C-alpha cells in the first residue's frame, strides 16, 4: 500500500513566484549608508584597535585599519551583497542564511573603523570594549533567558524589568542585613520568583491578559521598591543598603589569555552563572523531555493537553523559574555593578532584555548574542565618549531599540514567536 506517496503535495514545482523583497531592500539601504558615511565621509586617519593591555601576560599586536580604504572596501562589499540578494530574489530563490551574518559583520567593521577613525584619539582597546560589553550584557542575558523560559511555554513576559528591579532590591537588602553577598544573590532569585508568582497567578489562573499584567507589574515593582527605598533604606542605609560586593573570581592562567580571558575567566559568580544558565537552558529546552513538553505547551497547548501534559502547571513552574533567573540578573546591579540600591536603577534593562529575546529568536543562544550586541553598543557609547567622537551618544543608545524594531518588522531576519505565546489556556 503506497498510499502516502499519492497524497504528497507536488512540492517545488508549485512553489515560488511570491517574492520577499525585504532582505535586498534592507541590504541596499545599509549599503547606501556605508557608501555615504563610511566611504565618502571617511576620516583621513587610521583606526587603531588594541588587542592586548600592557599588563597582559600574552601580548598580541594592535590592529591598525586605514579608515578610507576600509570605508570604501565595506561600501563596495555591502553593495555587492545587496545586488547578489536582489538577483537571488528576482530569480525566485531564497537568500542563504549566512549572507545576513557576513553582511552584519562587514557592516560592523566598516562602522567601527569609521567611528574610531573619526575620533579625536583614533585608538581604542578592543579587549576592554568587549569585556565591558559582556559585563553590561550580563543582566540583559539573565533577563532575556527569563523571557525565553516564559515565552517558550506560552506566557509573554513584559515584567522582566520588574523582575530585575525586585532582584536588585532584594539582593541589596538581604546582603546588607546578612553581610553576605551570596545571601543577597539567593534573595534576588526569590524576589524575581515572587514577581513571577503574581504574573503566573493573574495570567494563568485568572486569564488576565499577560501584557497587561506585565506592564502593571513593572509599575508596581517600581512603586514598591521606590517607596521602600525612600523609607526604610534611606532611613538606615548602613543596615539596609550597603551590600558587600560579589568578588571577581579569576581562574589562574586561563584568565590571562588575551580577550577571552577577561570575558570567560575573570568574572564574578553572577557572570559564571550566566554562562551556565545559557547552556543549561539551551540544552534543557531542545534536548530534554522537559524542554519538549515546554515547547509543546508554548506551541499548541491543546495538543499537549491531549497527550497528558498539565498545561497550566507547566506554564506556572516555568514562569516561576524565569523569575528566579531574572532575579540573578537583578542581583548584578547591586552586588557587582554598584554597591547600593537606588530607585529605578535598572533603567529599562528589562525592556532591552525583551528586545534581545526577540532579536535572538526565542533561543537562549540567540538571546545571548543579541544581548551581547546590545551591551556592545552601550559600552561603545562610553568608550567613544572617552576618545571623543562626533557621533552623538544618544544615537548609539538608540541603536538596540531601532535594531529591534527592524527585527520585529522582519527587515533583519525573521522572528517567529511560539505559536501560543500570549494566549491563556482555558479548558471548558
Amino acid at each position, binding site marked *: 500500500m503506497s498510499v502516502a506517496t499519492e497524497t504528497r503535495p507536488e512540492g517545488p514545482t508549485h512553489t515560488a513566484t511570491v517574492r520577499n523583497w525585504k532582505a535586498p531592500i534592507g541590504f541596499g539601504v545599509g549599503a547606501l549608508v556605508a557608501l555615504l558615511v563610511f566611504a565618502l565621509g571617511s576620516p583621513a586617519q587610521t583606526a587603531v584597535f588594541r588587542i592586548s593591555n600592557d599588563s597582559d601576560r600574552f601580548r598580541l599586536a594592535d590592529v591598525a585599519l586605514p579608515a578610507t580604504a576600509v570605508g570604501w572596501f565595506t561600501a563596495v562589499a555591502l553593495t555587492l551583497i545587496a545586488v547578489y540578494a536582489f538577483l537571488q530574489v528576482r530569480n525566485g530563490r531564497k537568500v542563504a542564511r549566512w549572507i545576513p551574518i557576513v553582511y552584519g559583520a562587514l557592516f560592523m567593521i566598516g562602522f567601527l573603523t569609521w567611528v574610531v577613525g573619526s575620533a579625536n584619539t583614533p585608538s581604542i582597546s578592543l579587549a576592554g570594549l568587549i569585556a565591558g560589553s559582556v559585563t553590561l550584557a550580563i543582566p540583559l542575558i539573565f533577563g532575556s533567558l527569563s523571557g525565553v523560559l516564559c515565552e517558550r511555554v506560552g506566557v509573554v513576559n513584559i515584567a522582566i524589568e520588574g523582575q530585575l528591579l525586585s532582584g536588585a532590591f532584594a539582593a541589596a537588602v538581604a546582603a546588607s542585613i546578612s553581610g553576605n553577598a551570596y545571601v543577597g544573590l539567593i534573595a534576588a532569585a526569590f524576589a524575581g520568583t515572587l514577581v513571577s508568582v503574581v504574573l503566573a497567578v493573574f495570567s494563568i489562573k485568572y486569564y488576565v491578559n499577560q501584557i497587561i499584567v506585565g506592564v*502593571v507589574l513593572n509599575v508596581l515593582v517600581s*512603586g514598591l521598591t521606590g517607596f521602600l527605598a525612600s523609607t526604610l533604606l534611606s532611613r538606615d542605609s548602613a543596615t539596609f543598603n550597603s551590600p558587600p560586593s560579589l568578588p571577581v573570581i579569576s581562574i589562574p592562567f586561563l584568565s590571562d589569555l588575551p580577550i577571552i580571558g577577561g570575558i570567560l575567566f575573570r568574572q564574578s559568580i553572577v557572570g559564571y552563572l550566566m554562562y551556565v544558565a545559557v547552556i543549561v537552558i539551551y540544552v534543557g529546552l531542545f534536548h530534554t523531555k522537559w524542554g519538549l513538553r515546554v515547547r509543546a505547551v508554548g506551541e499548541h497547548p491543546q495538543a499537549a493537553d491531549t497527550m497528558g501534559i498539565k498545561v497550566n502547571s507547566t506554564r506556572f513552574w516555568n514562569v516561576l523559574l524565569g523569575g528566579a533567573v531574572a532575579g540573578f540578573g537583578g542581583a548584578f546591579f547591586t552586588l557587582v555593578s554598584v554597591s547600593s540600591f537606588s530607585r529605578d536603577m535598572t533603567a529599562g534593562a528589562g525592556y532591552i532584555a525583551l528586545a534581545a529575546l526577540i532579536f535572538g529568536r526565542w533561543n537562549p543562544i540567540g538571546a545571548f548574542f543579541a544581548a551581547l550586541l546590545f551591551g556592545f553598543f552601550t559600552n561603545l557609547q562610553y568608550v567613544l565618549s572617552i576618545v571623543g567622537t562626533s557621533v552623538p551618544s544618544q544615537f548609539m543608545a538608540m541603536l538596540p531599540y531601532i535594531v529591534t524594531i527592524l527585527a520585529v518588522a522582519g527587515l533583519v531576519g525573521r522572528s517567529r514567536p511560539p505559536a501560543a505565546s500570549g494566549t491563556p489556556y482555558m479548558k471548558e
Partner: protein
Amino acid sequence: MSSQLQQGDSSRSVLHRIMGGSTLVAVLAVVLSIVLGGILIAVTDDRVAETSAYFFSRPGDMLTAAWEAASGAYIALFQGAIFNPRADTVAQAIRPLTETLTVATPLILAGLGVAIAFRTGLFNIGAQGQIILGATFAAWVGFTLELPPGLHLLIAVVAGFIGGALWGFIPGILKARTGAHEVIVTIMLNYVAVYLVAYLLFTPGFQNPGSSNPISPRLDDSALYPLLLGSGYRLHLGFLVAIAATIGVWWLLNRSTTGFELRAVGANPNAARTAGISVTKGYVVVMMIAGGLAGLAGVAQVAGTEKVLTGGIAASFGFDAITVALLGRSHPWGVFFAGLLFGAFRAGGVQMQTQTGTPIDIVLVVQSLIVLFIAAPPLVKAIFRIDQKKKKKTTKPDQSSEDITTTTAAGGVA
C-alpha cells in the same frame, strides 16, 4: 472543539472582561488597593516600628500608630487632591481640586489614546513616546514661530497632535505592513523618543541659548494655554481640551462609521476584513489617532504646566495612561473619570509627601494594584466573599457581559 474556539477568542474576551466587569468589582478593587497601600504605609512607619518593640505589653500603641500613619497619609492625600479645610480662604481651599484637574488633563488625553487603540485590538504601550514627540513638536512651534495669539496656540496644539500621530503611525504601519507586534514596537519607540529629545535638547535649535542644561527656551505666551481661573491656579485650557477630546472619542467610537470600523477590527478582524473593512488601514488610523491624543497630552504639559521642554516632560504619564485606560475599561467616560481619580492620587501624593513624609511612590503602588484587581474580578470576589456558588447552581442564563464572553467562547459545544 470548544476549547479551540476559546483559545482564539480568549485574549479578546479578556479585554472585554476588563471593559465590561461590574462596577461593584471596580469599587471593591479601589478599596482593597487603598487598604493594602495603607498597610504598606503603616508597616514602614517609624512610630509603628518603635511601638512594635513593646507590642505584646501594649498592643494598642502599635495599632494606634499604624492607624495614624495610614490615615494621616491618606488624609493628607485627600486634602492635597480635593479640598483643604485648613485653608484661610475659599480660593485656597479649593486649590487642591484644581491641581487634580490640572494633573488629570494629560492622564485623560493619553488614557484616551491608549483606550481607543485597545478598542481596535491594539496595545498601545507607546503613549510615553507619543507624549514626548507631541510636546517636542508643540514646544518648537511655541518658542520658534512668531504668530498672533490664538493662532499661535492653535498651531502648537495641531503640531503636538501631529507629533504624537507620527510616533503612532510608525507602529501602526509596521503592524499593518509587516505584522510587527505593536507592543514591542511601541515600547522600543518610547526609548527612541527619550534619546531623541535628549539629543535635541543639546542642539542649537532646541537648547535654551546660554544654558548648558538640556532645557528649551520658554514657550511664547501666545502659545500657552490660557489659565482658566486666573494666575492663582495652574488649571489651564488644556482641561477643556481633554473634555472635548473625551466627547470626541465617544462620538467617534459610538456614532461614526470610522468608529464602527475600528470596533469591528478590534472585536473580530477576520469578519471586518470579509465585510470589506480594511484592517490594516484601521490599525494605521487608530494608531495615529491614539498617538495624536497622547500628543495632546504632551501639549498640555508643555503649553500648560511646564512651559519649557525638558527630557522629563512626559514624567510617567504615558505608563499611567495605560492604567487609566484599563481602569476606565477603555470607554471614553470611564477613562475620563479614571483620569480624574489618578490625577487626584498624583496631586494629593505631592501634598502627602511634603506633609507626612510618605513617598509619592505609594500612589504608583495603589494605582497598579487597582488595575490588577480590576482585571481579575474572581480574585476580588473571592477576597470579599461575594458568593459565586449561587450563581453557578442556578439554571438561569447569566446576564453579565463578563459571562457572555465566556459562554460565547464555549458556544462551539452547542
